[in-house]
């Protein structure tokens, strides 16, 4: 065992791509059919939705005033939430992956809780923390900050549910890679800040992109926490999912059209970000 640490699995030093390797997949023949069933479970409802769309009126349905307001609000808030996820999520992932501290397992579990909480429950929790009568409500009031029924509340709700996606993606990647390169950088005289900017960050980039996409998609689709914590007012807090929820009551065609729009947006985002499979070597 040498202490000088080993590099990424599939060390860049040794292997070159062998274009002659046969494309055997080593997959047992009964696996793909099951995978196909799983894929159908996802695809069939999407296709079914597409068949219900009132195509003749699709254009006007998705460009109505309320729809445009909801879309603009959704994009603004999801972007803000994603930025917050990056700003907060990167340090969290790094600390969880690299720093040893007491009760670390507990901390990691807690950080991932929003993943399994029903979003409405998340919204309630936010309410009890930041609401007017919440734990911090009094403090915020004194500071003159009123989050209730504001766009800020929407961003908070979206960040709450999307943050674990960022942390999980980044932390897995960081742990898989190990701190070998940071160790090398230190022996070469790089201080921690320099190593973070010039080694950790660039090598983290693919995972960061993946985490950002997941967080954005999650924030865009967030409903339960938003409606419980932020409320629903056109242009202020009524994001697309809330608009769809409302349109269900009166104009199912509009609801379906907007739903399809949301699906298409999600597909575009995910497709753009995952053009190439996330490779293990850095870009």
């Amino acid at each position, binding site marked *: *065992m*040498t*202490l*000088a*640490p*080993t*590099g*990424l699995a599939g*060390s*860049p*030093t*040794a292997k*070159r791509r062998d274009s002659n390797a046969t494309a055997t997949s080593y997959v047992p023949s009964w696996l793909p059919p099951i995978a196909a069933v799983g894929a159908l479970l996802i695809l069939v409802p999407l296709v079914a939705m597409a068949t219900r769309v009132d195509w003749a009126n699709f254009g006007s349905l998705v460009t109505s005033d309320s729809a445009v307001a909801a879309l603009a609000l959704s994009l603004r808030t999801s972007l803000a939430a994603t930025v917050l996820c990056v700003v907060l999520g990167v340090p969290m992932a790094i600390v969880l992956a690299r720093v040893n501290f007491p009760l670390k397992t507990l901390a990691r579990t807690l950080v991932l809780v929003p993943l399994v909480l029903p979003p409405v429950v998340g919204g309630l929790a936010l309410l009890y923390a930041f609401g007017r009568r919440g734990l911090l409500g009094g403090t915020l009031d004194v500071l003159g900050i009123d989050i209730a029924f504001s766009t800020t509340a929407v961003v908070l709700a979206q960040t709450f549910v999307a943050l674990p996606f960022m942390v999980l993606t980044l932390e897995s990647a960081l742990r898989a890679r190990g701190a*070998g*390169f940071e*160790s*090398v*950088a*230190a*022996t*070469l*005289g*790089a*201080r*921690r800040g*320099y*190593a973070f900017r*010039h*080694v950790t960050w*660039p*090598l983290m980039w693919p995972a960061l992109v993946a985490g950002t996409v997941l967080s954005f998609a999650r924030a865009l689709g967030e409903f339960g926490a938003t409606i419980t914590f932020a409320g629903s007012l056109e242009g202020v807090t009524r994001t697309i999912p809330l608009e769809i929820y409302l349109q269900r009551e009166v104009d199912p065609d509009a609801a379906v059209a907007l739903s399809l729009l949301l699906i298409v947006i999600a597909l575009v985002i995910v497709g753009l970000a995952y053009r190439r499979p996330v490779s293990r*070597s*850095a*870009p």
Partner: protein
Amino acid sequence: MKLVASARIAARGLDANVTLEPGRTLALLGPNGSGKSSLLGILAGLLRPDTGSARLGDSELFEVSPAAGRWPRPDERPIGLLGQDPMLFPHLSALDNVAFPGRAGGLSRSDARETAMSWLRAVDAKALAQSRPGSLSGGQAQRVAIARALAAEPSVLLLDEPLAALDVDAAVTIRALLATVLRDRTAILATHNVVDASMLADDIAVLHDGTIVETGPTRDVLARPQHPFTARIAGRGLIRGVRTKSGIRLPDGTALSGMAADDAPTGSDALLTVRPGYVRVEHAATAGRSGTANSVTATVTAVETHAEWLRIWAGGLIADLDLELARDQAPSRGDTVTMYVDPAGAVVYRETPLR
């Protein structure tokens, strides 16, 4: 700058001191698990000992004790470390890899690259400057890694089995490069390969089960080992006994002749060493010339098979047997054999163990 260090890690069974004279290369020789990497890690600041201290030149490098602790981070030490995995930063070109220490130290991009270029030239890797680490072969990558480690201008360079991951050709080439690089450099080279030690090191320290069992100039240690382990690494037979006028006498009374390397008095503890080329082996049963001087009868403890010859270990001696001549007579483990020692190749000297 002279380096004096000692460190102890109970959990790993490590308890070692090293002294390194300035401008000299010390080979830390020992098998995997003997503590070589741990020791280097401690010097580099990557592994913290239970207790230990080191001085580099006039200043203290680190001090760890129950009372106090001064444990600078790796980036705060003038120590460089090169391992068997080049660990080139995959997102940077070879040139930018070598420029990394300069940039980290505050140089501008152009200055750092200029320096990097000269280091690449020094290791004969100028053509690789714009290559990505992923496209380099093992030997090429290690070459660039050497340039990068040197670019950090360390006071002491630590090398942890740098050739272990290279194929034969690359190892030969890189070893030659290292010979040039290490010429006037203060360095420690950890290796289990005796060729690395003999070609690259001025001094050797032999590490066995976490402690240094033998230390001294390379030639002396490899030619006249004190410890059986060192003898094994050096590929030499070693027998202990008591000094006689013509050689040594073994505990069972057998007398062996050899050339005296020093004038230690008869009766003192002595060692005899001899290379396999000067030892002949025969099955004890068929030994027609039993009773002839300079032989040891012993049980075969190991046999190493090569295409046309065998290497036999018995009684602390090593002998090579040409299969062409004695195929039907080839001994195996457990057989009793007689090892005939040619006195012209046997050297007798004082035993002076470290512990």
